């Protein structure tokens, strides 16, 4: 609300951030695949205190019908925060912010999906923020792209995401809520790491062109790290599945 840089000290005397991280360090990341049984694909992510569920339904029939496209699947995305996910209760009705984020998240995921394979169908991505502590759109993208893959939807690549902030004049990765509120800049970023394509880029705050270039290369490095975690989360799910199949074969 335009009250950035209120002078709260976000860097400790030892040069670390309030939660003890180095500027170029992301928070601990946990991704679990396939925890919502009804969905065709799902994922749960914990990035520090940011906690999010993502579920994918589809490809399935499009309702209402006139929205269907003859040459590709349509992607629909809903980013939603639970009323208890933030300090002051948020009304469950979608806000303007949620409507914008739903759109940019959809546009961040769509380039990775081979939509041409599913004419006249819809792929629905639902995202529920359970607890918000900064970088929720980036965590949503990480979880949603894993959920899409676990739904068996053919993809060109996974989408990894990381935000860059600027606090006390220094560029930092993966901003928390307090760093977003009292820092100078928030720059959410998403890419397909294997294809080196940027699929989401937003900036809220003042940066020079040179700083943007540096911020993008920091975020790219973080995305490659996150990409490995996404892949191993998917592998883990299939190892579990194989075990379950072997168990049932024995009995």
């Amino acid at each position: 609300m335009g009250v950035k840089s209120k002078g709260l000290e976000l860097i400790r005397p030892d040069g670390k951030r309030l939660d003890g991280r180095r500027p170029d360090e992301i928070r601990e990341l946990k991704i679990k695949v396939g925890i919502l049984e009804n969905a065709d694909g799902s994922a749960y992510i914990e990035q520090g205190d940011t906690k999010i569920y993502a579920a994918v339904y589809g490809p399935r029939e499009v309702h209402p019908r006139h929205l269907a496209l003859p040459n590709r699947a349509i992607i629909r995305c809903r980013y939603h925060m639970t009323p208890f996910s933030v300090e002051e209760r948020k009304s469950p009705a979608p806000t303007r912010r949620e409507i914008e984020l739903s759109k940019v998240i959809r546009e961040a995921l769509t380039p990775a999906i081979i939509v041409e394979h599913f004419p006249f169908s819809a792929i629905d991505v639902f995202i529920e923020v359970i607890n918000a502590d900064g970088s929720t759109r980036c965590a949503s993208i990480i979880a949603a792209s894993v959920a899409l893959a676990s739904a068996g939807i053919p993809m060109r690549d996974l989408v990894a995401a990381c935000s860059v902030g600027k606090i006390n004049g220094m560029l930092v990765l993966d901003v928390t809520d307090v760093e977003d509120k009292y820092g100078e800049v928030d720059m959410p970023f998403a890419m397909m790491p294997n294809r080196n394509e940027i699929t989401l880029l937003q900036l809220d705050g003042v940066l020079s062109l040179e700083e943007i270039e540096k911020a993008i290369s920091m975020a790219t490095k973080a995305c490659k790290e996150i990409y490995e975690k996404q892949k191993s989360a998917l592998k883990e799910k299939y190892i579990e599945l194989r075990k379950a199949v072997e168990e049932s074969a024995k009995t």
Partner: protein
Amino acid sequence: MIPKLKKQQIMDLLSSGRRIDGRGLEDLRLVEIKCQCVKNAEGSAEVRLGKTLAIAGVKTSIGTPFADAPDMGVMIVNAEFLPIASPTFEPGPPDENAIELARVIDRGLRRAEIIDLRKLCIVPGKAVWEIWIDIHALNHDGNLMDASALAAVAAILMAEVPKAVVNERGEVTIDKNEKQRLPIKNIPITVTIAKIGDKLVVDPNLDEEEVSDAFLTATFVNDKICAIQKRGEKGLTMEETMRALQVARQKARELFKIIKEVVGSE
């Protein structure tokens, strides 16, 4: 089918450095800005970008500040894509495109600190000026974003707001006879670049928008960037992104001169 053929035609032209409306890749369309065209609005501007037409109006009222910013005025940006502007626009509450446009312009204005919101405080914690910026699309021929942003900026720069008077009982009244300009700090300029195939074009028209892979909208203030929004259903490489931002910066300098001239002459 039609977009496919159109895309082929646009791409063929682009490969020889030309565009469907005869412009070069980095040319803006003709910009026309008409200020204070709405008598009842404190500030207003109508902006033409080629055949795209948008109008912005500034209205003011006295309200209460946000609890986390008791000494700051309030700025609200809203955008409506009216059915008058395009056969594809429907009446009803703003859709995701109109909401995105309003929020991107809002971020640009806010981060550039176009208005010194602290100077809009009347009684700390009690009464502040609310500045309502309403943007309405009137004719959509591509790049409503830049036309709307320019209209919003011009309307803010030209706005003349009445004076707030606090009487001895602490009540706030408005003195409509005494008008003054808003406290302006910086002038932000928004420029959109479209990616079509492997080409980048400035200020896309509607035909180009329909076949574009992605868009990058950047808002500049004093040669720095204060807001970015990547839009569209495909990605951009890092090189394309940086090149787009450099071209956009150049165009922002051009538009800055134009708006300075318009505002200075009135």
